[in-house]
């Protein structure tokens, strides 16, 4: 196993303050290793996007981070906690180390500036001494990287198609050669053909440039295909984390099982699409115990009382690097 590049420990995120606060993320632990694609899946409201924005501190008000650490491990240096940075440090850190490709490709580009301006201003902000010619050359290179011809530099966002805009965003994310790229539903708004083109290109770029990816989507079948490991979120917590092959073959948490059966698999044997009955929990009124138990076909008495702890399942011993939070698969006592 490769070493960690981003480590999230005990992250808690609230919307609002005091008694009105909604706990959107609860005690999340997650590790992103160097060069891997980590998938983050869950229904809307599960907290997966909040997690992505939270770890870069981009949550809009009234979002607040109420605890935890986000450790970034630079090459051969001591880890730094993103949550402890002051604004100036954070500004320098952003995009240089972790870049983000946002959900709505349509709205991520500033409509009134040319593509060239938006590609070069980030370089200028992080390297004020660069010449404008060198920045422009880099912008041209970035467009080339994502398969867009350089004469598009002078275009405005509204002159590009949705797929092109998302490519520009991916190119922009790579401008400063970050170690981590976070992708929040980067292809949801695009049609299936464009979606797959872009994802294939992304995999290729990652192999060439060696960055790590946190890939967020509600489409688990997409993750099974494109990511190395998958973490499943429900009600603000991670309920299962495993290598994608393991998760696909043998999902332990009933919710993961349900999610897998909600989408048609792109490859492999056909499954029956069943979906999950019920709707995601209201974060303002979370059920006691395991948040999933009201919808769970295997719910036991214990599920409504105690929150299951995320850990290595006792009934799946061995080297498999996987964790689950479910009373059906209680955590090994001695394994930690």
């Amino acid at each position: 196993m490769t070493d960690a590049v981003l480590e999230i420990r005990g992250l808690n995120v609230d919307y609002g303050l005091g008694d009105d606060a909604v706990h959107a993320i609860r005690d999340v632990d997650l590790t992103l290793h160097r060069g891997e694609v980590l998938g983050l899946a869950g229904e809307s409201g599960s907290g997966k996007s909040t997690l992505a924005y939270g770890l870069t501190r981009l949550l809009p008000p009234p979002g607040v981070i109420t605890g935890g650490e986000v450790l970034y491990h630079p090459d051969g240096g001591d880890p730094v906690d993103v949550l402890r940075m002051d604004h100036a440090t954070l500004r320098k850190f952003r995009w240089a180390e972790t870049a983000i490709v946002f959900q709505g490709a349509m709205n991520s580009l500033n409509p009134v500036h040319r593509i060239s301006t938006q590609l070069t201003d980030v370089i200028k902000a992080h390297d004020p001494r660069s010449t404008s010619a060198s920045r422009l050359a880099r912008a041209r290179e970035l467009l080339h990287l994502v398969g867009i011809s350089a004469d598009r530099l002078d275009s405005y966002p509204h002159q590009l198609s949705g797929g092109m805009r998302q490519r520009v965003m991916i190119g922009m994310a790579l401008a400063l050669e970050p170690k981590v790229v976070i992708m929040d539903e980067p292809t949801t708004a695009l049609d299936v053909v464009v979606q797959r083109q872009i994802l294939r290109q992304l995999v290729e770029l990652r192999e060439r440039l060696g960055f790590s990816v946190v890939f967020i989507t509600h489409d688990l079948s997409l993750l099974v295909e494109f990511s190395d490991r998958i973490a499943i979120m429900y009600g603000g917590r991670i309920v299962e984390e495993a290598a994608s092959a393991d998760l696909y073959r043998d999902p332990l948490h009933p919710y993961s099982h349900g999610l897998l059966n909600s989408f048609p698999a792109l490859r492999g044997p056909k499954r029956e699409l069943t979906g999950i009955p019920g709707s995601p929990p209201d974060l303002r009124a979370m059920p006691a115990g395991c948040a999933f138990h009201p919808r769970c076909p295997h719910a036991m008495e214990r599920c409504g009382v105690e929150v299951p702890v995320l850990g290595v399942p006792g009934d799946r011993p061995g080297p498999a690097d996987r964790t689950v939070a479910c009373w059906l698969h209680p955590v090994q006592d001695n394994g930690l």
Partner: protein
Amino acid sequence: MTVVPTTGTATPVAAPVKRRRLRFVANPKATTGLVILGFFALIAVVGPWIAPYDPSGRSSDLLQGPSAAHWFGTTHLGQDIFSQVVVGTRSVIVVGFVAGIVATILSILVGVTSGYLAGAGSEVLSALSNVFLVLPALPLMIIITSTLPETGTLTIALVIGLTSWAWGARVLRAQTLSLRGRDYVEAARATGEKTWRIILFEILPNLTAVIASGFVGTVIFAVTLEITLAFIGIGAGSDWNWGTVLYWAQSQQALAQGAWWWFVPAGLAIALLGTALSLVNFGIDEFVSPRLRGGGKSNVKTADGHTVRMRVGFTPVLATKTRSEGRETP
């Protein structure tokens, strides 16, 4: 104020209509505005009975400053200014609301029709409202009213109403255009629903907030215009309104004589009424687009005692301890 997550990450809970309505009334801006508005409406109704003097009645107290007998002082003819302002409220409120209602009805007719119906008719209506929008209102009103044989309160109200519908029509047209493409409207059309039924039951209910805010905006506009016209001597015949008071103050050189009490009360009343109406409109705006709502507390204390302002782009970090104990069960 309850804090609602504004990102799509938390499931939006469809609030029942009743609760949403209550939330509008619970909006402090809207409430303040409505209370002030209610106060003026009350004065408008009972004004002539509670006024201590006949607003036109002369007395021997010429150009007196505020006193116990004359709260707002007197004019050069010894008229009681307090009574003039109180009695004049009715004309102001009547013009505001009559003009507002007339203009709102016209703007709904023109705006919704031109938004819902496609084709040349729609374009003509749209061009018509744009023409009325760019014509400077005050000079237009002046040449219309100056040629009218009679300029009482109601005439002024009607003329203002008939000329100031264009803004509302423009906004409503844009809204209707976007509503027309919505799934449920398309569905209603596909099932052969009659056009007037679609407009009445599918389109109009979704325009309520826009119509309300357009109405309030027109009332502000109409009140200002009436007072302005009265100030330059149009419609200053028989009915008292706040503009008439200012007209006499100006034409009798109240300023040069140091009679500040002659124009200060009426001006403050105008500003107060305008503020109240604006507050109601802010309430509507915030009701419609939650982004504008103040997020309640906007400053938070971090673990190390600093106070951080909540802002876009830099999420505050309250504590950096690794684990939050005692939160396992909600």
